[in-house]
Every structure is written in structure tokens, then in C-alpha cells.
């Protein structure tokens, strides 16, 4: 029994009875044409926002971080919220590329490339915020422990902030290597299709002499499996350690044992929402509806629902135990979270993260593209607010009522966050122009999935739906 047997309930992963050659043309064609008008519009918008953000960063570094809305009670707020938000976004990419690979989820092949790219760009955005917070980013390398001439000045190894440095730099490195290794066969195809010498030289250099021999594929597959194995624990460790930035403290609302898995669940949740946001646009603009199919969207909505509900369970558990603990500080922090001056942020968080994804219980809504797009944005907003709620509401009412204070971000802070979105979208837009957004080498491996005579009528129907969306 060498050829796999599929249940009649299985659907093919790629629509439209494509030939292998057609897959290459469909994906590579986008890179070989001149950019479309929509692309230029998006690119100009993204770079303008990025430029604005860059100006803000220059201003706040020139003036000092006194340009932020922080005060003695609320010493941490907007900047760290953005940092955790972006780190979280990155998680879906690694989950899709590594964890789903190890779990042999073949549907990942159409979406893993762009999700991984998104991870790298999100990590890049996240890294900006601690760097800006340093005030003197040119001394940023001081976070690394190395023998130095500053006297016995070492980073504090007991601080979770230093663990972050290791966790995130490891995560960024492995993600980049994993992504790049996955790209090599596809880069070689682009090289072989190149019409100009320049293009051939650049992609040839990047393809590292890939010749597509059986030996090369064998090495490739082993490397890929090992990297997936290495990347998987990182999905969990990075956000667990980010959660420890808070949970190792003794601040009510920050210190609770559920934080590591709860943060990981939240990260995957927000990451999937961002993957949905990006891919819904990408598939439409680049006409990838036969590859990133409604079935893919449907599955991603299910994952989003699961993780959204897990996050909801964690909210509930925290609330119950805050009361159960009998600690008046814990209890007050949570009552204040829901009813205090920033209570509205709490309810934004609950509505966006717990209530909004409940639409995905229904197949109809999991296939309703405009609704999913809106919900993915709503979840992104909700997950930003989740971090804001955790950080701000736990701080702003100090133990001493005389120290109580409020916090509002300044325009500079808001524009810096906006600027990070500019960076994120700029990078993503460049990515879809220069590298294949779909791992077509891998997609070819799943073309036969669940395809049989029995299915042919279904392909036609699916093709029809896919084609309908083009016009």
C-alpha cells in the first residue's frame, strides 16, 4: 500500500486541477510582471507611514523619552504593549511552519511562506520598541553579556528582560534560517526562469547552487525536519519568557502562574488573526484563490476560534482565582480592571478576543471573506488591548492611593505604533514582489491530496467559486 488512501470526506488542498507547470507559472508570474497599481498605492501608503514613524522616533530619541505619557506610577505602558503585541503576531508563522509540519498538516503548504515572512517582520517591529525605550539605542549592544571595559557591569541574569534578549534573538535567528532554507528550491526555480543576467545572478546567488538532485532534496528534507524540531520549542519559549517579564514580579495582575501558556495561546490567536488579515488581501490582489482556498481560510478561522476561546478561559480563570485567593490586592486589581477608569479597555479586550471569534462556530461565517477580514482586524485590536489592559491596569492603582494615577499616550507614542505598522507592511509588500509568497515547491507535493475521479465534479464546483472571486 504505497499510495495514500483518503477518506471520501477529504477535500483537495488546491483547486482547479492545476498542472505542476501551471503552479510555477501562477506563483512566479507575479514576481516577473511589473508591480500593479494597487501594489504601488499600498507601498506608497506603507512607506509614508513608516517615514512618519521614523520622524517620531528621531524626535523622541533626540528629545528623550519624556515625550511619552509615562509617570512615576505608570512606568511601563505603551511601548512595552507594542513590543508584546508584535512578538505575539510572529507566533502564528512559526506555528504554521514548524508545529503544523511536525503534526503533518498538509494544508499548511499554501500559507506557510507568507506566515513565516510575517513572523520575521513582526519580530523586527517588536525589536524596535525596547531599542527605542533605551533612549540611547546606539548602546543597545550593552544588553549582550560580553567581557567589557565598563568595569564590572554585566546585564542582570536574573532579569526576565535579559532572558527576552536570548529568547527573541534565538527565535529570530531560527525563524530566519528556517524560512530561508525553505526558500532555496523555489529560488532556484526563479533563477532557472530568469530572463536577464542580473536576475539570474541574484537569484542564483541566493539559491546556493541548488540543482534539484535527489541527494539535494534528501539533505533539504532532513534539514527542514531538524529546523522544524528546533523551532517548535521556540514557539512556546518566546512568549512564555515574554509573559515572565510580568509574571515573575509580585504585582497583582501580573503575577499569576497561568501566564506562560496563556500568553502563548494569546500570541497564536493574534498571529492567526494577522495571517488572515494579510492573506485575505494577498490572495485577492495576487489572484491566489485556488491556492489559498476558502478551505484554508476556514481552517485558520477554526484555529482562531480555539485559541480565542482558550484566552477567554484564561481570563475567566484569572478572575475566579483572584477572588478565590482571598488576597485583597489581587481581588481589587481585577475589579478595577473591569470597572475602574480604564474599564472600557477591559471590555474592548473581552468583546474583541472572546466574543468576536465566536462567529467562527458557523461554517457560513468561516467562509464569508468580508466578515472574516473585519473580524481579523477586530481581533488584532483586541489583542493589542489585552496587553495594554494587563500592563496598565495592574500599575495605575498603586498600593498607596496617594500614588494612584492615570495614563494617556502622547501623539508621539501613537504615531510610533503607527510607524511600526508602516514598517511591517512595507516589508511585506517588498516580500511579495521579490520572493514567492507561496511555497510552490511544497504545494506541488500536495497536489494529489484527496484527488480522485470521485472528486472531479467537486473540483469543478470549487474552481467555479474560485474563478467567481476574480471578477
Amino acid at each position, binding site marked *: *500500500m504505497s499510495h*495514500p*488512501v*483518503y*477518506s*471520501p*470526506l*477529504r477535500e483537495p488542498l488546491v483547486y482547479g486541477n492545476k498542472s505542476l507547470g501551471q503552479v510555477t507559472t501562477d506563483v512566479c508570474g507575479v514576481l516577473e510582471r511589473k508591480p500593479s497599481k494597487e501594489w504601488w498605492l499600498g507601498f506608497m501608503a506603507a512607506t509614508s507611514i513608516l517615514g512618519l514613524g521614523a520622524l517620531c522616533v528621531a524626535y523622541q530619541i533626540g528629545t528623550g523619552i519624556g515625550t511619552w505619557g509615562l509617570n512615576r506610577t505608570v512606568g511601563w505602558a505603551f511601548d512595552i504593549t507594542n513590543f508584546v503585541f508584535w512578538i505575539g503576531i510572529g507566533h502564528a508563522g512559526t506555528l504554521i511552519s514548524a508545529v503544523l509540519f511536525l503534526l*503533518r498538516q498538509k494544508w499548511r503548504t499554501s500559507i506557510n511562506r507568507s506566515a513565516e515572512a510575517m513572523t520575521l517582520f513582526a519580530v523586527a517591529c517588536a525589536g524596535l520598541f525596547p531599542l527605542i525605550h533605551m533612549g540611547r539605542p546606539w548602546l543597545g549592544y550593552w544588553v549582550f553579556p560580553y567581557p567589557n571595559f565598563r568595569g564590572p557591569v554585566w546585564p542582570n541574569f536574573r532579569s526576565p528582560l535579559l532572558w527576552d534578549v536570548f529568547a527573541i534573538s534565538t527565535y529570530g535567528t531560527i525563524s530566519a534560517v528556517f524560512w530561508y532554507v525553505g526558500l532555496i528550491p523555489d529560488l532556484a526555480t526563479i533563477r532557472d526562469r530568469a530572463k536577464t543576467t542580473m536576475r539570474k545572478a541574484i537569484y542564483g546567488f541566493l539559491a546556493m547552487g541548488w540543482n534539484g538532485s535527489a541527494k539535494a532534496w534528501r539533505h533539504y528534507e532532513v534539514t527542514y525536519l531538524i529546523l522544524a524540531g528546533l523551532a517548535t*520549542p521556540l514557539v*512556546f519559549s518566546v512568549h*512564555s519568557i515574554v509573559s*515572565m517579564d510580568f*509574571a*515573575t*514580579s*509580585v504585582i497583582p495582575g501580573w*503575577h*499569576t*502562574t*497561568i*501566564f*506562560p*501558556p496563556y500568553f502563548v495561546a494569546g500570541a497564536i490567536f493574534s498571529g492567526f488573526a494577522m495571517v488572515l488579515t494579510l492573506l485575505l488581501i494577498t490572495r485577492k490582489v495576487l489572484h491566489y484563490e485556488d491556492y489559498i482556498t476558502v478551505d484554508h481560510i476556514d481552517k485558520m478561522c477554526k484555529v482562531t476560534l480555539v485559541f480565542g*476561546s*482558550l484566552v477567554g*478561559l*484564561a481570563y*475567566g*480563570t*484569572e478572575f475566579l*482565582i483572584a477572588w*478565590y*485567593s*482571598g*488576597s485583597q490586592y489581587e481581588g481589587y486589581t481585577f475589579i478595577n480592571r473591569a470597572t475602574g477608569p480604564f474599564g472600557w479597555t477591559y471590555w474592548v479586550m473581552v468583546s474583541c478576543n472572546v466574543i468576536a471569534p465566536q462567529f467562527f*462556530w458557523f461554517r457560513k461565517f468561516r467562509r464569508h471573506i468580508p466578515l472574516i477580514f473585519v473580524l481579523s482586524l477586530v481581533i488584532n485590536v483586541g489583542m493589542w488591548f489585552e496587553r495594554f489592559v494587563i500592563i496598565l491596569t495592574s500599575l495605575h492603582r498603586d498600593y498607596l492611593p496617594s500614588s494612584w494615577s492615570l495614563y494617556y499616550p502622547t501623539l508621539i507614542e501613537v504615531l510610533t505604533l503607527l510607524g511600526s505598522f508602516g514598517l511591517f507592511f512595507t516589508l511585506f509588500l517588498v516580500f511579495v514582489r521579490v520572493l514567492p509568497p507561496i511555497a510552490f515547491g511544497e504545494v506541488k507535493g500536495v497536489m494529489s491530496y484527496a484527488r480522485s475521479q470521485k472528486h472531479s465534479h467537486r473540483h469543478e464546483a470549487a474552481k467555479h467559486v474560485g474563478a467567481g472571486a476574480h471578477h
Partner: protein
Amino acid sequence: MEASGHSQTFKPTSKALFVCFVMFVAGMVCFGYTLSKNPAEAWSHWLIGAFYTTMMALFGIFFCAMNYASGAGWNVVIRRVNEAMASNLIIGFLAMVILVIGLLTSHDKGMERIYEWLHLHHDHGAGSLEHAGGEMAAAAHSGQSALDKAHHELLEHKSPWLNQNFWIIRMVAYFAIWGFFAWKIISNSRKQDIDGDVKRTRANVRWSCLFIVFFAATVCLASFDWIMSLEPTWFSTIFGVYHFAGLFAGGVSTTIVLLFILRRMGYLKEVNANHFHNLGIWLIVTTIFWGYIWFSQMMLIWYSNIPEETQFYVFRMTNPEWDKWFYINLGWNFIVPFLLLLQQPIKRNEKALFFIAIWVLIGRWIDLYWSVGPIPFLDHATHVYGFSKDTVWLSVGTVVGFAGLFGFVFFKALAKAPLQATKDPYYEESLHHHSA
């Protein structure tokens, strides 16, 4: 290749049932002996057995539901084993009911240390000196009575949640929910044996999704109610996740052990190395997950060093009788199975996997024993460990008794339906499943 239209039916051999029966009797002898010696110790052992049984039964239905919900196909050839495991929910329920009766009817002083808050209403308003561990409290000096007063106030604060009636109502509700979904999903699966209607699979996907929602919440709450509340002043939000991890690792191991035994008896020839490979993957995944959750709880409590939280660990890491279990627990449940299961050949080798599964099942007892074992000897207000020692082998014996009962009910339940769900739309896929 077409599916063979009919499937084998399991018939338990009298030898198998006899072995289960002997285990059960041996366990009850251990329990009875302990009961005559120290009732609190006996009931703490009983609680370990009851909780363990409940979690393994619950895994049976959870694993079916998880695979329905995620559209997995590979597990169809082993699903009847998981379905039959779920029949033990009734044993879990009866064991918990007997525990409640035992707790409420005993007049032994030491018994007040098990679910200390359960006895709160006896001396409501009578002052703080008479609560659990009365003898010790009666001899208290003023420093201790202040501690007792604070302790008593804390129990009063928690009494809306931790009180006899609500606790029992919740317990019945958990079992009712689990039992209802298990009945729905399993009966749909069996009806499909007759009509082969694909709608039954679709219905089960819906029931499974709904079940998982309730399952997630009730497993957390049940572990708070039955284990965490043994030390009523202690709390940890991750506690439910910790026991979910244990449920999963233990449940996969139970499945492996039962498959191995059934195949030795000549059944389930459809199951091959590919199915074992998947179970092996689940076992290493859940082993790592358990280790991760163990570390998260331990590290955060250790690092922050807040007395309300550290009470759980300080005692267990410093008491000369219990400290070794702290290290044994981590080594046994994480380090050893993790290193062994990294090997692909081991995951595909039925026999090797069987021995690791037995190892993990012993590990589940260690984990529960380490949590529950000290309770009968612990004064919860002062954290003074007192006057007697637990007898390890009696706890092992009691759990063996539960294992025998579990096996007995499992074999009986398995005989009630064909061993293979041959008309499941994923059956063919499962037969030809290729892992790796």
C-alpha cells in the same frame, strides 16, 4: 481494497477478568487495612485512585472528541478502545460519591484535614480554635491562635465556593456533563456501525466541539475542586492546565497499554507501527507539555516567593519525607520519557512503547501522590507536618485496585460493540495510515 464488511467482536477471557478482579481485591485489602489504621490516609489514597480513574475515563471521550473535531482520520481503528475507556466515568463517579460519604460520615479527627473547609460548617460561630486539626489547635499558644483566626477568615471568604453543598452539586454536574457527551458521541459512533450514515460523523463533530468547550472548563474546575482545595489556602491559576497535561499523557499511555494487551490477546490486528507512531508522538508532546506546565508553575512561584503560594512547594521541597518525591516526579514524568521518546524507532515499536507507557502511568501516580499524599498529615493553618508517616505501598496498592476495576469495566464495555467502526468514513484512511 474494500473494507471487510463485518468486524471482530471482543470477548473478554476469564483470565483477563480474573486478573482485574484479583488486582481490585488486593487494592481493597490495602484500602481496608489503611482505613483501620488511619482513615485520613486511606481516603487520601482513595482520592488518588478516584481522580486517576476519572481522568483516564475522561481522556477516552476527550481523545475521540478531539479527533472528530480536528478531522483526524488515523485514530478510527483504535477508537473503540477510547470509547470503552470512557465507560469508566461511572466508576469515577461512584468512587467520588463513596469518598463524599466517607468524608461526611467519619468521626475521625484526622479526617478534618481532607477538604478542611468541608468541616467548616460544624463549628461555624464557635470560634477559631475548633477547626481542623483540633487537638493541635487546642494546645495552641496565642501566636498560633492569631494564625488560626486569619486562616479561619480565609476559609470563610472562600466558603461561597468551597462549601459542602455547592461542591457536591458541582461534582454531580461535571459527571453529568461528561457522561452526557460521552453517551451522545459513543452512541452515534455505534449507530453508524449499522447504517453507515456519514451524517453521524458530522453530528459527532458538532457534539465533539461542544464537548471540548465544556471539557476545558470542567477539567480546570474539577482539579481546583478535588485537588487544589485540599490545601485551601493555596492557589495557582495554572493548576487546571497542569492536570489536563497529566490527563493527556496518562490517557495516551493507558491507550497504548490497552492496545498492547488486546493485541496480545489476538485482537486489533489492524493496528500497526504507524498508529503506534502517532500515539508515541502524542506521548512525547504531552510529556513535554507536562514538563512545560510543571516548570511554569514551579518557576513563577519560586521566583516571586510569595508566602501564600510558596506554602505548596516549601513543604514539599524541604520535608525530609517528601522532598525526594519532588525530584522523582520531575525525573520520572519528564526527563526519562522525553529522552526515550525522542527516538523514532521507539515510537514505532509496540513493545518499547508499552514499557514507556507503563512507566508514565506509574509517573501519574507519583504526581498525584506528591500532591495528595501529605495532606492527611498537614496542619493547614501552621503548615506543621505531624505525628505520622504515610505508607507508600498502601497508596500504590489502592491505585492498583482502581486499575483492576478500570480494566474490568473496560473489558466489559469493549465487548458491547464491534472492535472496528468499519462504516466510519475515515475507516479506510485509518487502515492505510502512514506515519513518518
